[in-house]
Each structure stands twice: as structure tokens, then as C-alpha cells.
């Protein structure tokens, strides 16, 4: 391939973008619009997954201790619990702390606990975090076996439900992502197909004059790459700004629930989407032009 020819390809593709303005605009906006939808969904999915992870983190096992457990025994117990597979952290809660927490739970009715202070009936406990909801079933009985443990509370039902819910959310957001990605690619290549279709006569004339397939293809592919790149970049730009705006707006309005910060969620989009757009654009052109080359 001569330098001359490469120059021709580049020049030709740029000219073509300009001369087929309507079609170029249609392609760019289609890429931008579909990837924008994809981006919104991805941002949602990231947040839903983060939320699910937070919910998972809230799962804990409480091991109540017998009143006769000494400090030494307690440390030994903690070591034993830590060794169980799946345990992530163990935290000790003294009898005093337990009472305090109980009062807090009662809230404005805390006067009710007044009588309890003298002979504190609440047991000390370990609060144990595990690596996944599934581990609870394995860890719980093992803790219950240990000496000095009065009782284990693990909210089995709740854990199971949350575990399932999280799985469903993760699974369905992945499925939706894949479906949406496929549709995006499909919509974009549909548009490219139509723009190529409008130029099928041109393509056939080139063939009749003796142009090789690749000579005709290259400018089309470059054009597709370029339009895809622009469209993808625009989509990323819009998603990023919209997301940052939304994240800030929510942060100021309700403290408790926040979006995953933009740096984590969408900061990669600009190159991911540009790349995706470029690939779809180039590949879409390549595929679309194929049928018209067989003359």
C-alpha cells in the first residue's frame, strides 16, 4: 500500500463525512444516543451493585457469651472464631456496652431500662462479619459449638433473603447490561447499514471501474471509525456530566443515600465509550459494505 493511497483513504473518508452530512449526523447522533442510554444503565447498575454490596456488609452474626467467661477465655474465643473460614472481622461488646445499646434502641422510651442497671441481665457478645451471606450457614454452627458461647443469633431467614435479593439484582443488572449492549450495537449498525445502502450505486460503480474491495472499504471503515469515535465521546461526555450533576444534587439533598462518586463510577466512560463507538463504527461499516461489494 502506497503512502499516496493511505493519504487518499484518509482524505476520502473526511470528504465523505462532509459530503454526506445528513447521514454522518444521523450516524453520530445514533451512536451518541444509544451509548448514552447504555451509559445511564451502567451508572444505575454500578450504584445498584454498590448498594447491594453495602447491604451484604450489614449481615452479621452475634455470639452471646456466658456471664462466667473470663477475659483470658474471651481472648481465646476471639482467636478461635477468627480462624473459622469465611470470618472477616470479630468485635467484642461488653455487658455495659450491650446495655447502652439497648437503651439507645429503646430511644425515647429509655426510662424503661432504668431498673436494669443494677443487675445488668444483658450478656456480652462478639459481633462477627463474614465474607458473604452464604458463609453464615457454615460459620454460625461452628461458633455455637465453642465453649463459653451462650447462644448464636444469625437471622438466617433475613440473611437468605438478602443474599437472594442481591444475587437477583446483580444477575438481572448484568443481563440487562448485555441486552442493552447488544441492542446498542444493533441499532448503530442498523444506521450504518442504511447509510451504506444509500451509497450502494456509488460502491458498484467503483467496482465496475476496477477498484479492489479493500480500496473501496478503507474509506468507509475509516469513516465509520471516525463517526463512532465522535458519537461515543459525546455520549461519555453527556453521561459523565449528568452523573456528576446528579451525584452532587443528591449529596446536598439527602445525606443518608449517596451515589457512587463520579470518580469511581463514570470517570472511565470517556475512553471506554470512545473505544466502543470506534469499534462498532468501524466494524459496522465493514459488515454493511460487504454485500454491495459482490458485483
Amino acid at each position, binding site marked *: 500500500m502506497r503512502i*499516496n493511497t493511505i493519504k487518499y483513504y484518509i482524505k476520502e473518508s473526511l470528504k*465523505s463525512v462532509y459530503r454526506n452530512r445528513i447521514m454522518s449526523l444521523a450516524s453520530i447522533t445514533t451512536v451518541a444516543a444509544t451509548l448514552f442510554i447504555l451509559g445511564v444503565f451502567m451508572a444505575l447498575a454500578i450504584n445498584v451493585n454498590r448498594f447491594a454490596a453495602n447491604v451484604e456488609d450489614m449481615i452479621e452474626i452475634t455470639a452471646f457469651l456466658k456471664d462466667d467467661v473470663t477475659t483470658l477465655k474471651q481472648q481465646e474465643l476471639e482467636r478461635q472464631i477468627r480462624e473459622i473460614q469465611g470470618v472477616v472481622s470479630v468485635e467484642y461488646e461488653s455487658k455495659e456496652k450491650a446495655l447502652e445499646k439497648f437503651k439507645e434502641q429503646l430511644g425515647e422510651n429509655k426510662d424503661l431500662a432504668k431498673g436494669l442497671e443494677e443487675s445488668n441481665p444483658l450478656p456480652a457478645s462478639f459481633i462477627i462479619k463474614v465474607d458473604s451471606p452464604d458463609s453464615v450457614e457454615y460459620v454460625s454452627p461452628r461458633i455455637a459449638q465453642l465453649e463459653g458461647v451462650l447462644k448464636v443469633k444469625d437471622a438466617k431467614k433475613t440473611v437468605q433473603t438478602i443474599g437472594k435479593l442481591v444475587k437477583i439484582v446483580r444477575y438481572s443488572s448484568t443481563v440487562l447490561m448485555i441486552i442493552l449492549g447488544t441492542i446498542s450495537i444493533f441499532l448503530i449498525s442498523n444506521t450504518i447499514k442504511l447509510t451504506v445502502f444509500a451509497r450502494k450505486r*456509488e460502491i458498484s460503480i467503483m467496482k465496475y*471501474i*476496477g477498484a479492489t474491495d479493500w480500496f473501496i472499504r478503507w474509506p468507509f471503515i475509516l469513516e465509520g471509525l471516525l463517526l463512532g469515535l465522535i458519537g461515543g465521546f459525546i455520549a461519555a461526555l453527556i453521561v459523565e456530566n449528568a452523573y456528576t450533576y446528579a451525584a452532587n444534587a443528591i449529596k446536598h439533598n439527602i445525606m443518608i443515600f449517596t451515589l457512587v462518586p463520579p470518580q469511581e463510577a463514570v470517570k472511565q466512560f470517556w475512553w471506554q465509550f470512545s473505544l466502543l463507538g470506534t469499534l462498532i463504527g468501524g466494524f459496522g461499516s465493514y459488515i454493511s459494505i460487504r454485500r454491495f461489494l459482490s458485483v
Partner: protein
Amino acid sequence: MIELKNVSKVYKNNHIALSNVNFKVQKGEFVFLVGPSGAGKSTILKLLMKEIEPTSGDIVVNNVNITNLKRKEIPYYRRSIGVVFQDFRLLPDKTVYENVEFAMQIVEASHKDIKKRVPQVLDMVGLYSKQKNYPHQLSGGEQQRVAIARAIVNNPKLLICDEPTGNLDPDTAQEIMSLINDINKSGTTVLMVTHAKDLVDRMKKRVIAIEKGVIVRDQQRGVYGYED
């Protein structure tokens, strides 16, 4: 140079466009192909450039049986032929200059050669001043001449012209005809479909006449020979 052996062409709707056509054209010859509208003239030319495939028979060009050409080889084969299409087939998004240039770009001619040759050819067909026009900004005759310019720009060994003067006034047609005659004299084989009785009669070249898909006459130094 060209040989058609028992070539028949039946179109999809069962129309028999050519039946058992046989003829040979020697290298350097100038041959007119004449006949009434719908006789099958363009069909022969389309077969020669592999726009369509024959239903039966063989076509040999330059000692190569083109019915057996591989897909990859077709573009290179087509480049060895200059074709003026009956419907011009100019690229609508390219200017006159670019249309002619394109034929040189596909053979990867050097920038220098292109810059020298294209204006030269445009001048030959009298369109030097129209080089920046797009096809839709040209008159019918001008479009036809662009098609001619594009066909000859690469100095093809074989020049095929389908009605190259149909949209030209007699004077311009005469000029184009002498241009093609000059090209022929420099060694290019020419096969031309035409209805221009005057020109055929005057040029005294070989004439192949076809009617309803059958060759009815093949005459050295012939005349158009229809009408009255």
C-alpha cells in the same frame, strides 16, 4: 484479443438476450457493434467486463478465459479495460476532476502522474474548464465526455464504448470519434456500440451487426447498413 465462443445469455425473466454468439477481435482492431434497440449489444459489453455472467459459452480476453476468473482477480482484469458505460456511471459525489482521478487512484498511480495526466485527458474531451463541476452540474453531453475521459485515462489495452456519442452533437461526436481513432492507432483495441450511422459509414471499420441476440453480419470496412 477478444473471443466469444458460443456465448448465450438468458436473463432471469427468461428473456434470451444472446444466443450462440461467436466472434473474434484481433489486437489493435477497431470494431463497431451495431443493431436495433434491445438487440443485445450492451449485453455483450456487460459480459466482457463481467458485470453479468454468460448462461453458456466461453469468453476469452487477452488469452484468459474470463469466465473462470477468481473473485480477487476481477478488479485487476477490469482495470485492463477502459469502459464508457451507456448510462455514464459517474460518481455523483466527486467532481469531474475527481471522477477521472479516481480511475488512476485505484491503480495506485503516483501523485505526479495523476497531476499530469488528468488535466491532459480532460483537455482532450474539451472539459478542462468544467473540472470542478459535479456530474449534476453538467449537461448530458458533458457527462458523456467525462465518462470517455475516465475510460481512456489509464491507456487501457482494450477500450469498450457503449454509445459514446448518443448525447453529443455531430461536431463534438466527430471530434470524440477521431480521438478514439487516434487511441486505436496507438495500439488500443476498440469495441464500440453505436447508432451513429454517419460516423460508422464514414470510418470504414469492421462492423458486426446483431439482431435479437444473433449476429447477422460481420463485415470488414463495413457500413451501418440499416434504415431504408
